[in-house]
């Protein structure tokens, strides 16, 4: 576990080193924004297409800092009971019965017994505010765009003040604010009020050099020429007019698939047969026919020469 002296990192370079030490290859822009989020104690909103490594930032940060990762996956209809806290109803019923059996008649007395912290079930948001011996946890609020505006409004209190107000109990405030990372695939626009409380970063597709580095870091077994070819092919494919261009996750999947198939280089047939790993829409696959694959392989060869 890393010692406490590294937190928060002293400089942007230190932040970059922290991330790459844990297996994430950041570009300068991402390192800067993560550095600022850690230093300014602000939540970080990462937006970008699916599969560009947004969630991975939170995982890597948690691993690199030796913190606990608390993940809240968003979905439509997500409510307080699933996101922040819920009362333990059976236990509350028993408490009421016991109070009754003991002849307790004072309403306030019963209420404070029933709505006490003992009967509170903590869900991810509340859990992230609790003190942790390893240091404040990393709270990942994943795919925020899947939930609705009503939930965003609720998040505002957590993001700005690191606290949650529970009507029956009072306000729970984090002693040390957690590191909050929000991600969005942009299936709808996040409200300005929420964005204002966060640092924002658009995670784009990596450059050829960086993608090669990511591939090397994640798949150390892959051959040098194969990895260059894979990166060249994917980079060329991203320039095509596709409905969904492949992300870094797809590049890694494809490279892993090629390694599984014992491929030393990517030929036209191998590329066509494994296209389903890269492209997930039938229109896109149909568009990438034999002629297109040949063209892409040509482009890949040129790119891999410049990368060498």
């Amino acid at each position, binding site marked *: 576990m890393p010692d406490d002296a590294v937190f928060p990192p002293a*400089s*942007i370079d230190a932040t970059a080193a922290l991330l790459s030490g844990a297996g994430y290859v950041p570009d*300068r*822009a991402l390192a*800067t*924004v993560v*550095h*600022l989020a850690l*230093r*300014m104690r602000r939540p970080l*909103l990462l*937006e970008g297409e699916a599969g560009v490594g947004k969630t991975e930032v939170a995982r890597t940060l948690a691993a690199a800092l030796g913190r606990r990762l608390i993940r809240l996956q968003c979905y*439509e*209809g997500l*409510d307080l*009971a699933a996101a922040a806290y*819920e*009362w333990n*109803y059976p236990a*509350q*019923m028993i408490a*009421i*019965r016991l*109070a*009754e059996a003991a002849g307790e*008649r004072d*309403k306030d007395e*019963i*209420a404070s017994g*029933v709505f006490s912290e003992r009967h509170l079930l903590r869900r991810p948001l509340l859990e992230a505010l609790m003190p942790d011996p390893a240091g404040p946890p990393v709270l990942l609020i994943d795919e925020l*765009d899947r939930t*609705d505006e*009503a939930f965003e409004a609720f998040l505002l209190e957590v993001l700005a003040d690191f606290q949650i107000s529970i009507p*029956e109990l009072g306000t729970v405030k984090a002693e040390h604010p957690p590191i909050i990372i929000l991600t969005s*695939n*942009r*299936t*709808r*626009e996040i409200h*300005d009020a929420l*964005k*204002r409380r*966060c*640092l*924002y*970063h*658009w995670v784009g597709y990596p450059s050829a050099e960086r993608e090669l580095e990511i591939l090397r870091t994640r798949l150390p077994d892959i051959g040098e020429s194969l990895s260059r070819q894979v990166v060249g092919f994917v980079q060329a494919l991203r320039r095509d*007019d596709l*409905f969904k261009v492949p992300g870094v996750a797809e590049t890694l999947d494809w490279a892993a698939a090629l390694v599984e198939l014992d491929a030393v280089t990517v030929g036209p047939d191998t590329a066509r047969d494994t296209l389903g790993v890269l492209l997930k829409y039938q229109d896109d696959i149909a568009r990438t026919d034999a002629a297109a694959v040949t063209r892409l392989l040509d482009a890949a060869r040129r790119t891999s020469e410049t990368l060498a």
Partner: protein
Amino acid sequence: MPEADAISGAPGRGRLAENILTFCRLLRASGLSLGPGSVLDAVSAVEVAGIGGRADLYWTLHAVLVSRHEDHEVFDTVFQRFWRRRAGAERLIEMLSPVAVPMAPPAAKPGLRRVEEAFEGALAPPQEPPGEMEVDARFTASDTDVLRTRDFAQMSADELAEARRRIALLKMPDDRARIRRLAADPRGPRLDLRASIRASLSTGGDYVPLRRRGPRERPPPVVALVDISGSMSDYARPVLHFLHALGTRRRVETFLFGTRLTNVSRALRHRDPDAALTEVGRVAPDWSGGTRIATSLHLFNRDWSRRVLAQNPVVLLVTDGLERDADDTLAREMDRLQRSCRRLVWLNPLLRYAGFEPKARGIRAMLPHVDEFRPVHDLASLEALVAALSGPSVPVLRRGRAYGLEAVI
């Protein structure tokens, strides 16, 4: 600048804070929504990160000031211009002065055009609808029924103003879509244990009155794609007024297309309809030009459909469908659009002609892929649209079949 002093706090930093303040002002004038808080954030971010190099300053300010991906281009241009020299402020004064050095040739992107304007300190004069100043003697208050069925294209400026007023007063559709969020509902299907326990305490726990919850409903969002080419310009503005009024109660995303596709949702959210329309005219420069429907739909499907169609909206497509080079792509893009939304309604002002026949190739390609085909040339047709949106979707209105057209995909 007193604000700058307040921000910097310590002597020596004033210069930087002042520069950042001016920089933020330029960004704001270029269309980014930045509050005073953003300026404070920017200054403290630069202090925290330290000024390592130009790239670090760039990304530090970017982290704090850019909150939408679309704003990146604008930020980039303003940054490159502003921090070109070390003394950004002098550069700015030079630019703002009347004898300013000639600007670079105007860039193509609408965002960048706003940057040009911000640096020049001048905003383009708002576009006025081409109105004739003749006075129509027949128009009096009792003539409302005449106005109701008068073609927007034939209205005088006064009549248009009256039409706009009546559009704003239209009773908007009361359609509901169930969402997955629950709300208190005495006849709802689920028990609300939390409310029940709380209610039981009022009797000291003697009995537990059951409280219930049920799914909430809200008006489904609307996505409008409005053709602003020359043949549509008389109808696009009243439709935009309609969309503005519609947007007060639900989420409305509006896109304009002519030779390119522009998202004007944000501009249209301005409270005042006329200010909103002026702003729309400013961000969409290709009014009354040509039209490329297939290309625009393709761009929409590729770049925006995932972002605005995820909430299962009603899509209003406002165009006359007069596409010059209609081919398979148009049908394919229409098919994709229809499959991605709750209901696709095509509003076509050509339907004002009683003997309308879908002869144009573009119309023939599009028609099989819409759920409803409606006119949009007068107030009465807008009222009919409201009524149609209030009711359930009418699948029999697959008017393509009525005209003997089948989908050819």
